[in-house]
């Protein structure tokens, strides 16, 4: 699984991309988020926001969206283009 982070979230985590070879039992986007949050700071506070968006395979998704090892996930703040 590829996991991407963008904008302020990318900067706070100092990470733009991870590759996972094993989902460690995660079945949903929310399960992935929980695993990231348990890493401690800055992960726990940066990923613990009500305004965090998630996409699965480049489509906006929710924390209940099911995921597999082949998916591309991304976490990012609300968009501000245009």
């Amino acid at each position: 699984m590829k996991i991407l982070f963008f904008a302020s979230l990318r900067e706070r985590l100092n990470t733009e991309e991870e590759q996972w070879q094993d989902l460690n039992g995660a079945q949903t986007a929310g399960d992935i988020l929980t695993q990231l949050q348990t890493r401690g700071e800055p992960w726990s506070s940066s990923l613990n926001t009500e305004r965090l968006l998630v996409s699965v395979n480049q489509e906006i998704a929710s924390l209940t969206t099911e995921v597999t090892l082949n998916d591309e996930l991304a976490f990012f703040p609300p968009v501000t283009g245009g």
Partner: protein
Amino acid sequence: MSKSIGSIRIQEADFSVDNEYQNLRAAHASQNGAICTFVGLVRDFGDKKGVTGMYLEHYPGMTEHSLQQIIDQAASRWQLHNVSIIHRVGQLNLSEQIVFVGVSSAHRADAFASCEFIMDYLKADAPFWKKECNDQGSEWVEAKQSDQDRAQKWSKD
């Protein structure tokens, strides 16, 4: 589902509004009755004064996908001949062009509504993020609830 229309470009380079307008005008030339264009520019006062420019980040791939979905929605709702979207990314200075949306149609009502619809959804849904640069440094722009509200209002019509 009919074939998608529209040209979508995400680029660092500046763009020529005239080129875009002439392309919209040339396609379906004798059937175009109305061309509406919108350009968004880096301006001096957003959330704070002293803006010197901005940095734009995006999610390559998802951005194009998201914009095509917005065009498809517009094309299913209004009678459109062509749509062109250009969105710049990277470093932009004060008063530079950020985004272009142009629509050609037979009728002005369709051209106006679809152009505004596309801008509203672009601002609410397309994965771009702005970092505002000012005298003190730079800061990520906070998303505005009003932009979500503006997109929402189209679903009530």
